């Protein structure tokens, strides 16, 4: 399968990249690892005149942690780099789990976490945990920089909140609060490699008595975007997350979901899996609070 013709651009700085996006608005496509983009080009689902490779831009590199600001995942950080990064493993182990659950070894050596988010697939592996952990995306254009909360980032399948003239620079994930716990759960038709039939990310924060002070639950592949399970979240507030409470929250998450049937699973199966995975995620997250 050969690719359609395009002109390739490789800016060496963010400033240059933003200039190119201004100049070729509507005719240009940003390429990180290309694992989504190249397939869409090969299928002729997209035919940009210009493809802008962003791997020579130093500002987009790296993964770092700051005790005040939290984690920074540069736009060109590979899925495999995030999965194996020592700071991520120590402080954000569920981000590592999600990156590792994405695709194959080869694809993780090419694709980025940012590309996974920007691609805005409702089933993307890295979205639920980033939503649960209240991440934000830093967008840059020649007009300047802005921070987009992840709750406002996904607009629909394949659609994100970036303007045509913007490039996503980095993902910021806050420092985990004390007595907080996170979980990522995924189920897919094949045990490995496959796109999720359903996935769930959850974060809970509890007080010294174990009473839930904050809950963020995100359901993947059961709606047009990664969905917040708001009725389950509200139900949890003020309660100790026992098995029974987690089960009830799971059932509420099941009603928050709006799944469809497709080749990967029927909507009935998806709803059932939302219920079970939410319960599992809440129990693991509670365990992670250490209370």
């Amino acid at each position, binding site marked *: 399968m050969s690719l359609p013709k395009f*002109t390739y651009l490789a800016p060496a700085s963010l400033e240059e990249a933003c200039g190119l996006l201004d100049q070729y608005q509507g005719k240009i496509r940003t390429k990180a690892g290309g694992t989504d983009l190249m*397939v869409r080009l090969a299928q002729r689902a997209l035919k940009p005149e210009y493809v802008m490779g962003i791997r020579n831009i130093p500002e987009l590199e790296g993964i770092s942690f700051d005790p005040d600001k939290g984690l920074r995942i540069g736009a060109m950080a590979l899925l495999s780099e995030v999965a194996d990064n020592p700071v991520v493993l120590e402080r954000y182990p569920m981000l590592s789990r999600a990156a590792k659950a994405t695709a194959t070894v080869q694809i993780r050596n*090419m694709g980025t976490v940012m590309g996974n988010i920007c691609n805005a697939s409702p089933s993307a592996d890295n979205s639920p945990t980033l939503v649960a952990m209240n991440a934000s995306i830093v967008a840059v254009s020649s007009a300047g920089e802005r921070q987009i909360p992840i709750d406002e980032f996904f607009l629909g399948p394949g659609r994100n909140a970036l303007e045509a003239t913007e490039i996503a620079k980095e993902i910021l994930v806050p420092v985990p609060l004390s007595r907080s716990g996170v979980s990522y759960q995924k189920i897919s038709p094949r045990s490995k490699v496959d796109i999720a039939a359903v996935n769930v990310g959850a974060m809970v924060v509890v007080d010294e008595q174990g009473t839930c002070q904050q809950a963020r639950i995100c359901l993947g592949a059961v709606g047009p975007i990664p969905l917040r399970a708001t009725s389950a979240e509200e139900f949890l507030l003020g309660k100790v997350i026992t098995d029974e409470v987690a089960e009830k929250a799971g059932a509420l998450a099941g009603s928050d979901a709006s799944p469809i049937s497709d080749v990967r699973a029927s909507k009935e199966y998806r709803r059932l899996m939302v219920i079970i995975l939410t319960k599992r995620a809440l129990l693991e997250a509670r365990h992670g609070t250490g209370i």
Partner: protein
Amino acid sequence: MKQTISLQVNGDTYQLAVNPWRTLNEVLREDLKLTGTKLGCGTGDCGACTVLVDGKSVSSCLTLAIEVQGKEITTIEGMAPNAEELHPIQESFIQKGAIQCGFCTPGMIMSTAYLLNNNHNPTEQEIRAGLSGNLCRCTGYNKIVDAIQDAAEKLREDK
């Protein structure tokens, strides 16, 4: 619209004029005639096109040739140390009967090389996870796992 690029493949440097939309897989197979690297799906799913770029396994069907200039590319043709000998991984695949039609084999061997470079003593589960991006229609995988265990052992002894 062709651009002149320089590619380092298996220790040799090649100067080539390529169009920017050509994949590394196309350039390896069509321009350099290194047809050991296969093209299966063309969409990243099967692993038949796996090569190493700076030591990392990637799908050459989803890689643009112009983006891997200046990087060290290793294909199946670069595995054997010389014309008489095979690489220990290749020997193990033959000895353990891990090859039937052979179409998946170059990709399997490149993925094995990546796995064993990063993990000298993988468990069966780690082998299966490490090779999960490579599909085989013939062997049922068990003999491939045997071959990889055998190769891992030989490579540990060589050290």
